[in-house]
């Protein structure tokens, strides 16, 4: 920050617009604003603080210039305003704070809330209103830090006094932005704590337990499954055996049927065999006279001879008997004459017949002829009968052969069967049925158990998943926790190291500056800023020498400290010192006047005439870029600014 100008309008004792342009040139960076006590030096500083930070708004009475107030008619308003223009990092800021007072009546005023605005011209030349104006100012030069740059002599004395470690610490921290580090560390630590708490709610060993349980369940499941397999095999075997037995029982039924059939066939066969026997008996009967047809020819011949003889009349006398019989039978003679019933012819024939004497030979011949005629039919019949019988025999033989075949088949079938009896089989069957019932129950139980195990396993696996997720989750939380805590630790370390390093640097710079500012340099060996922020000067024997410092020396120490800090941090803040030299010795003043402008970028000195005179002023002269005088008009009670150079 480099101040450009400060404009007061009706601010306290400053009547009207009063502008001070401040020296910014690197070589002429000192602005001297002189005035007698009460002229407004302190007010000027206050105005700066009020404008930037709204400090001390309600203190020291009325903000609005009294004269301006009285000049404001009723119903009108008047404004106390401070405008500060400064540049920072290439940008030009205009800060305006104003408070309006409305005159309601002669004696009544209405005071509005102060208005505050910050605008800036960016590096690229763009004008813009700054949002969050207070924040912007804070980030450029925090109010707490500003106290060390816009100070008065009283204040700086404080630093050097014992018991002000807190203030020193606070200063260092703020200037060095250690606050940032500390806040960051605290917040990160808080976040880490939160994560830790989250972690705390996750069981760590739970995953292992669950995995063990899962393994157990799987083993159990495996065992049970193999048991089930065994049971199922047993059942299958029993079912097969049962099927066998049922088959055998069925076979036995079939056997019975076969046996019945066999009996039947047997009967049929026997019947047919009997038929065959009978047939042969018949054949025997035929064959008994079978020779007759063989003699057919001879019989024909003989018959022919007999007939011939008969025809030719060579029939023996016995034949006449036959002849006579024939006549009688015919009832007519060969000449044609009828032979009547009671005629003499008939009687004559009868007499002849009675007288005839058959010969044996005649009889034999007659008989033979008759026999032969009778046998003739046999000649034809017997062969036919025999052939017929043979045909029947063939049919019977076929039947018998068929029946024998069937019986043979049957017998073979029956021979295949075991002679197990039904009773044994039935018993076996019952046992198997019982076994199957028992197995069904066991299998059912085993299946239920396996199903339960599956359910349990599923549940455990779900738990494992969840635990894994949680473990995953825990990992994630752990990751966050470590990240946050690592960052916090890093900040811790760094904080301390940084602070220590900064302290060291500040110490060195402060020493340098101190050395240049003090004239008893030989007496004082070193400046130290302890860990707990004791700001001390060590004498040549290494002992703290602070109590022995004079007020002036103490001021110088503080100044050195502030300047050292400023140097180290590179904080570009103007040093605005209000009557800094009041307590200092001449030598000190001279030193300060010489050195300080070198060690700050911008120096504004609010001094009384006595403070800065002769050598000190001369030393300072070269670097004075602007000088003003605050002129207090007793009569008006107002101060005005007079530009000197």
């Amino acid at each position: 920050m480099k101040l450009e100008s400060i404009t007061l309008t009706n601010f306290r004792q400053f009547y009207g617009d009063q502008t001070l342009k401040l020296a910014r040139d690197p070589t002429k960076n000192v602005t001297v604003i002189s005035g007698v006590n009460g002229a407004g030096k302190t007010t000027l500083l206050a105005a700066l603080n009020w404008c930037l930070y709204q400090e001390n708004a309600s203190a020291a009475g009325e903000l609005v210039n009294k004269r301006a107030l009285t000049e404001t008619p009723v119903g009108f308003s008047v404004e106390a305003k401070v405008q500060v223009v400064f540049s920072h990092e290439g940008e030009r800021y205009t800060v305006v704070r104003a408070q309006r007072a409305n005159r309601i009546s002669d004696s009544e005023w209405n005071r509005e809330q102060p208005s505050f605005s910050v605008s800036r011209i960016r590096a690229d030349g763009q004008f813009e209103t700054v949002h969050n104006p207070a924040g912007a100012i804070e980030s450029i030069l925090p109010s707490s830090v500003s106290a060390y740059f816009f100070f008065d002599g009283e204040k700086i004395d404080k630093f050097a006094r014992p018991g002000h470690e807190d203030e020193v610490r606070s200063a260092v921290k703020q200037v060095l932005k250690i606050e940032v580090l500390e806040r960051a560390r605290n917040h990160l630590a808080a976040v880490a704590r939160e994560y830790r708490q989250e972690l705390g709610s996750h069981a760590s060993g739970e995953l292992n337990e669950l995995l063990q349980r899962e393994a157990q369940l799987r083993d159990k499941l495996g065992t049970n499954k193999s048991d089930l397999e065994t049971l199922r095999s047993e059942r299958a075997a029993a079912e097969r055996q049962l099927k066998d037995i049922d088959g055998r029982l069925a076979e036995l039924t079939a056997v019975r049927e076969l046996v019945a059939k066999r009996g039947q066939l047997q009967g049929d066969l026997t019947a047919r065999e009997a038929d065959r026997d009978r047939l042969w008996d018949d054949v025997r009967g035929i064959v008994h006279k079978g020779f007759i047809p063989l003699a057919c020819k001879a019989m024909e011949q003989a018959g022919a001879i007999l007939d011939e003889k008969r025809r030719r009349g060579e029939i023996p006398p016995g034949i006449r008997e036959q002849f006579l019989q024939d006549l009688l039978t015919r009832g007519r003679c060969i000449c044609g004459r009828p032979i009547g019933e009671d005629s003499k012819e008939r009687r004559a024939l009868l007499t002849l017949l009675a007288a005839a004497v058959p010969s044996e030979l005649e009889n034999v011949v007659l008989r033979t002829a008759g026999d032969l005629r009778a046998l003739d039919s046999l000649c034809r019949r017997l062969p036919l009968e025999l052939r017929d019988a043979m045909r029947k025999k063939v049919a019977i033989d076929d039947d018998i052969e068929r029946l024998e075949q069937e019986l043979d088949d049957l017998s073979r079938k029956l021979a295949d069967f075991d002679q197990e009896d039904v009773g044994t089989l039935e018993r076996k069957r019952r046992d198997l049925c019982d076994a199957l019932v028992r197995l069904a129950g066991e299998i059912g139980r085993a299946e239920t158990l396996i199903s339960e195990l599956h359910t349990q396993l599923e549940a455990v696996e779900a738990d494992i998943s969840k635990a894994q997720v949680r473990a995953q989750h825990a990992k994630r939380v752990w990751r966050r926790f470590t990240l946050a805590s690592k960052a916090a630790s890093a900040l811790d370390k760094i904080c301390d190291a940084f602070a220590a390093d900064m302290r060291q640097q500040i110490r060195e710079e402060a020493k340098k500056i101190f050395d240049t500012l003090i004239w008893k340099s030989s007496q004082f060996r070193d400046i130290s800023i302890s860990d707990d922020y004791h700001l001390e000067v060590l004498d040549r024997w290494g002992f703290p020498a602070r109590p022995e410092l004079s007020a002036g020396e103490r001021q110088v120490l503080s100044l050195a400290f502030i300047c050292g800090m400023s140097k180290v941090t590179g904080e570009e803040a103007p040093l605005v010192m209000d009557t800094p030299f009041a307590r200092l010795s001449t030598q000190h003043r001279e030193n300060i006047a010489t050195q300080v402008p070198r060690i700050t970028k911008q120096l504004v000195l609010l001094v009384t005439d006595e403070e800065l005179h002769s050598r000190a002023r001369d030393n300072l002269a070269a670097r004075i870029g602007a000088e003003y005088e605050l002129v207090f008009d007793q009569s008006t009670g107002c101060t005005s600014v007079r530009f000197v150079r």
Partner: protein
Amino acid sequence: MKAGRTERDRVYVEKRQIEGYRKMAGIGTARRRKAVGADAPPFRDLKDVFLMAACLGVRARQRTPLRDKQELTRTSYFEKETDLAVLRAIAIAETQGVQVLEDEDAIFTIAEEYANTGYAELESRVLGAGRPLVSLTDLLLGEYADESAGDS
């Protein structure tokens, strides 16, 4: 029994044929088991065997005089209407006359000599392979077929 007619009371065959005749009539050893049906002896009686042999001989048209004759059976066993009629017919055919009817001896001699011829075939067929009755039946069926076929 009239004079003028020679009578015969026995019929004769060759001595060596007797056993065969007896076998074919089922006489002797065959009686131990009761043979039925096809196993039964083909002939009921010795005379039946003789008649069959004689007719076979007639079919063969050959007479063989007996050399070493032995009594087979009585002639009175022959049935008059059938057996004797056939023998007479044979004799009439043989002598081409009826005169032989008065000579019973001649009738039987003719028959015996024809039987002597026919016996060989009969024995070989009937007592050969197979059951006698079945063989005889076969033999007869064959002879009948030949007869009706017209060969003589």
